[in-house]
């Protein structure tokens, strides 16, 4: 039976496995290690809740069977995001292309330049169907989460400042701020 659990609520889970070109693992490791963390280039993916690049150094190599065939290193990309695949691929292959291109371009069979529509097609070809994924709040979009966090902060700030206020001032301050 095909695995097709790519969605949960309005969230989509994308998994891509791309083989890394021979001799490129170290350079790719360097590229990933040098990516800034704050802000991360992945923060340019406005639709994404979570996203990651992972190098799998010995994909398919079973330590208990050293003679067995193995399939070399792979680059794993996984992300959970709002809505359908296409708008997300647009962000991944166009919006953050400057940062992502040096990463994708070290994979086997990737179009050069590794961006735009050709990269979208490549990622779709290398997509692995998701079996099951967990979404803590499958109906909430990134925007809704951000707004909720801001409201939470605003409420806490208000609660702290309003301690000790008399009822009339409390009421007025609340009405002024919310």
């Amino acid at each position, binding site marked *: 039976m095909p695995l097709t659990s790519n969605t949960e609520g309005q969230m989509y889970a994308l998994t891509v496995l791309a083989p890394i070109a021979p001799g490129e693992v170290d350079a790719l490791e360097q590229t990933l290690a040098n990516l800034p963390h704050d802000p991360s280039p992945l923060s340019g993916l406005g639709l994404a809740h979570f996203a990651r690049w992972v190098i799998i150094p010995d994909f398919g190599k079973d330590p208990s069977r050293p003679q067995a065939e193995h399939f070399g290193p792979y680059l794993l990309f996984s992300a959970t995001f709002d809505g359908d695949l296409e708008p997300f691929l647009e962000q991944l292959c166009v919006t953050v292309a400057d940062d992502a291109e040096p990463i994708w371009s070290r994979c086997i069979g990737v179009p050069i330049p590794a961006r735009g529509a050709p990269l979208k097609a490549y990622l779709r070809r290398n997509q692995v169907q998701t079996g099951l994924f967990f979404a803590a709040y499958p109906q909430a979009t990134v925007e809704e989460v951000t707004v909720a966090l801001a409201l*939470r902060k605003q409420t*806490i700030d208000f*609660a*702290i*400042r309003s*301690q*000790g206020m008399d009822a009339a001032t409390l009421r007025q301050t609340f009405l002024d701020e919310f």
Partner: protein
Amino acid sequence: MAAVDIDRADIQGDILEAYGNRYGHTSYLFISIGDPASGRAWLSEQLPKVTTAARWTGPRPRSTFNLAVTSPGLGALGVSAATIESFSDEFQQGMKASAADLGDVGKSAPDHWETGLGTGQAHMLVTINALDDGPLQEALDGLRGGLADCGQLDVVHEVHARMFGGAREHFGFADGFSQPAIEGVSEDAAIGEGVPEPGGWRPLALGEFILGHEDEESRTDRHRRLPTAPNDPLGRNGTYMVWRKVRQHVALFRRTVREASRHYSEGDAKLMAKVVGRWPNGAPLATSPDVPPAHFDPRSPGTNAFGYVNEDPNGFGCPLGAHVRRSNPRDSLGFNGKLAFRHRIIRRGMPYGPPLKDGTVEDDGEDRGLVFVCFNASISRQFESIQRQWLNDGNVFHLGDDRDYLLGGTAGKMTIQGRPPFMLAPQAQFVTMRGGEYLFVPSLTALAAIADGVAG
């Protein structure tokens, strides 16, 4: 389970049982080693002086002497790169490399640390405990003389700490009495300090704190190997040590809590206790929620025999974000304590600098704080997890991004659960990191091997 075989004469002292409560003075001296031969010659001479965990038969020594080594220190003593690579990653990289994860940023960042710390120059740490000034001076003179005789050895940083009455730290709270219960060492303290199990509490495996012994993972699965330890002969009976010099801004802390307590109906003393989770005399708020018990001795058995799930699940006594509840959540994370007991540490902190006069809320400009010392088998799983997940973040306690209020920081607030609840606004840091190191405390066997140049 078989009785634990503890070779006390091979394990350094002050790890399994505290000296601090018996000695008034603790001095820490970091030594830089100019060349391996001089370092090893000096180390050879120190070996007979090293205090072990062997039980004292006569009167306690007037002073004790213990050694620990940093990763650069192993190199400076001529230990091979291959052997150094058998130590844990976080130890090899040093505390400085973990600074961002530990929250040592801003004024606490390594760039602002005191001389000799986090520079790669601190190679060995000598810890001296002494009964009083006389024996301390004797031990320090002896140490300095020995260093001068060997040449190529310099003290790059030193701190002289001393215990206050009631074992209080500078914020005014009895400190250091709650410690993990360990098999073969402190089994009596298992209730509240060990592992909660359906049939009651049991002590933690020795391997959580001393390498080369079964830990909580290997004890339940006989096929698993002992926890990861450095190559022989360094691995057995040694442990990792975390050393942090933390300045405490006592006047700021008092002022802040006093100011906030204007709107807190139960007063600033209670509010301060809520922040900590204990009363100044050490009595836990979980078991004494309303007023401090008049006659409380933190040393008496059973004072830490409590959990949070039954006693205080909602934090009305000890707030969910109180310092002691974060740093040792006991059973409060659910799952019968299983999320907490692998993150325990043995603490051996001592205050440095003069106390700020009682009641004073103006800063007197004195440098004072805590030398935080802890021992654990895995710095990343134990010390770093506590610091990162429990003190610097509130997520696992369902407290959002609230940080430990006692340590301060600009993120989050602190909620004092109650009817109504009370909230403390995010506050400037009450403590500033002044520097620290990750160290390894070798066994006596390992120290001798390093001194003889046969450690690998």
